[in-house]
């Protein structure tokens, strides 16, 4: 049985880094997948098991090519990239496969959607990931991860050099039921140099109901970027719409130069 599996593995050109693992029994690999000391070793064992249990699926995920989105972003959305086998193989590909930089965002998203990225692996992958879009895609996993891991990971992401990643961290935080526990990250994001981060911070104030950051949201109403003003306005509406209507800044926004912001302000004031 093992010989057959190894032959199949070889025939499907499994990546060479699996050679050592291929000699181990399934029982050993199962055990390693659960209890090896590092997430990398646990993941390696899962990859070997994936190739052993479903070599065709694993090969498709290992070798599959992207399709281009309408705006020329490489995407891996075929069913070949879905399911637990594909998930672990895609992560392996990201770790070792010499993936072109411009593929990494799409490949990471596919791995996340396939459920291949364990929460415990996010931080490690995140630290080694060179592409901001890929780092942002990884953060999605933290939206449903256990609180300690997730909140620590999002705090680390808020230190990222990329505004896109910082904004995504706040978006993910805002979608978590326990996100209010890191209101400090929201407050920090509200004065970020990147307007997307400031907008995400305003959104988080509203979504998480951070009443203590009322004044921060009021400050967002005068942001030079329309998206930030919009999110600040909506945050105040979510926190306390009656109080928001009484603000002179909100009343003035009925004439905001941005038509969408002005429209939302008028609708709020008309209530």
């Amino acid at each position, binding site marked *: 049985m093992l010989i057959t599996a190894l032959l199949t593995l070889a025939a499907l050109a499994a990546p060479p880094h699996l050679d050592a693992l291929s000699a181990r029994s399934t029982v050993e690999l199962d055990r390693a997948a659960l209890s090896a000391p590092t997430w990398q070793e646990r993941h390696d064992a899962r990859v070997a098991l994936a190739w052993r249990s479903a070599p065709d699926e694993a090969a498709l995920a290992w070798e599959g090519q992207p*399709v*281009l*989105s*309408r*705006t020329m*972003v490489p*995407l891996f*959305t*075929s*069913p070949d*990239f*879905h399911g637990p086998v594909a998930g672990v193989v895609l992560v392996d590909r990201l770790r070792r496969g010499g993936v072109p930089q411009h593929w990494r*965002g*799409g490949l990471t*998203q*596919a791995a*996340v*959607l*396939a*459920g291949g990225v364990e929460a415990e692996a996010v931080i490690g992958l995140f630290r080694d990931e060179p592409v901001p*879009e890929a780092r*942002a*895609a990884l*953060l*999605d996993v933290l*939206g449903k991860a256990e609180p300690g891991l997730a909140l620590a990971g999002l705090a680390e992401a808020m230190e990222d050099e990329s505004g*896109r990643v910082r*904004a*995504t961290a706040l*978006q*993910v935080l*805002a*979608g978590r*039921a326990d996100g209010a526990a890191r209101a400090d990250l929201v407050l920090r994001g509200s004065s970020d140099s990147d307007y*997307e981060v400031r907008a*995400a911070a305003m*959104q988080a104030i509203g*979504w998480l109901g951070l009443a203590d950051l009322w004044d921060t949201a009021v400050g967002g109403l005068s942001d030079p970027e*329309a*998206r930030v003003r*919009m*999110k600040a306005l*909506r945050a105040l509406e979510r926190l306390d719409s009656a109080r928001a209507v009484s603000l002179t800044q909100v009343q003035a926004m009925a004439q905001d130069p*941005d*038509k*969408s912001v*002005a*429209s*939302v302000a008028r*609708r709020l004031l008309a209530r």
Partner: protein
Amino acid sequence: MSPLLMLALGLACYREEPVDSDWAALDGQAVIGIANLDDDDENEVMDWEDLQVAGDDDLASLSLPALLEGQSLSLTLTGDAERSRVWLDDELLLDASTLQATLSGPDSGRELRVEFSDFRVLAGLELSLGHEDEDGPLAQAALSLESAPLILNHHLQQGEYEMAMEYTGFGGNSAFIRGFEDGLGDAFDGWKVASYGYDVWIQDEIEFATQTAPGLHMDLVLDSIRSQNGQYLDALPPKLAEPGVAVIGYGQGRSSSQDYFGNLEVSPPVTVDGVHYPYGRAYWGRNGTLAPHEDLRTMLESQQVQRPFELDVSWLCVGHVDEFITFLPDPDSDKGFVMWVTDTALGWDLISEMAPETELPRYGPTHGFDTIGQMVEDDELLLVNQDLQAEYIEPNIEIMKQELGLDDADIVRIPALFEANRLCGGYSLSLIPGTANMTVYPSGDTVKAFIPDPFLRTDDDDLSSDPMITIIEDLLPSGVEAHWLDDWSTYHAAWGEVHCGSNTRRTPGGSWWEDARHLMGD
């Protein structure tokens, strides 16, 4: 005829005896033509640049009365002479370098031909009839020379043929193509995508338009700057660039997604604050500083008959107006059409009412939702959709109401859900295939609507089990026939839908020189 009456006719007469009334009739006439932008002789030079008009059927004609023995006619080109020419038969008579010429009689009447290089050119032709025995003119007449505006098509115009890119083999779009073929038969053309760099986004690359004048008509293909230099669909399928069709482009350089023509649409004819727009109004999306290229916007604004306006697409990943709004003919509505617009609250209601355990085999690989329950339990998804509706879709509806003179009765809200895509900075893409992104094809008395299949069901083949399909079919106006197209892998998963991957040539109608003069503040 008294001198006063002759003056009233616009003819300045310096002699007591009457002159030929044919000359008098010319005064004040408008010679209306079209821009000679095609390549009738297929020499790969635009006909205006060719400087020869033999056999060219795109010039406006002006018949001159006969000149008698001893008479001469002085002709002067005025106004925009850089973009207009006057030909005598096949000889160039007047242009920017030769503003004046004289013809001598006798002759039996001659034919002038007027050529334009662009849309909405306004020039003039002054005629002065003289006689060798007279010091002053016998008669004078001033004519306007005018070229047609470019007019974009809208969804109420009859379809002539439909087109999409055909991607055969494994992973191709054969189901999508088959849907069009089943609905339209010979009126559908599928072109091999392999010849065009696997570019399936034919809506984004081209926009059809027309220019018409009395007795003249030219189909126009606007070629987007999204791909240039013959790359991808920029190498247009031959049928689109056949003789008699002009392929034109505006702008150069790096494009944004807002330059794609999924982001340029036209409403049906509307009346706004008492002003009728018989050809509808053009609209496009703006994303902050990003909008269609300034050259294109300037050109479209200068046409005047479809006075454009802007929507806010800053919330969308791709950022096209066709992602959330469309128009359908509706014989039962006051205006003859309805506007369909996405409504995420209806979308959420829809999934909330479905059985949570409903498996969604299509959604797993593309969106990470294997069941309806996983969607409904996603709090972030709910919040995202609530915000999109309140912050951007409703304000855009307000703009449409204001700019098109619509009220709530003209608007049909359809269920929709979007998701924030991390590869796109958290901006929105359709989660359920966007049914607003349909292709509308009026054909005779029926209208065929080619709509993205939402696949909000477990069994691909059982359309009757899909609640989204049921709702949409109930909302369709009478006479509209739904054709559900599987656009999932080639289009939806790649951030577009049916409309993005198809295009429609439509039959022009109307006479702008009669019904749209009030829109031209010349």
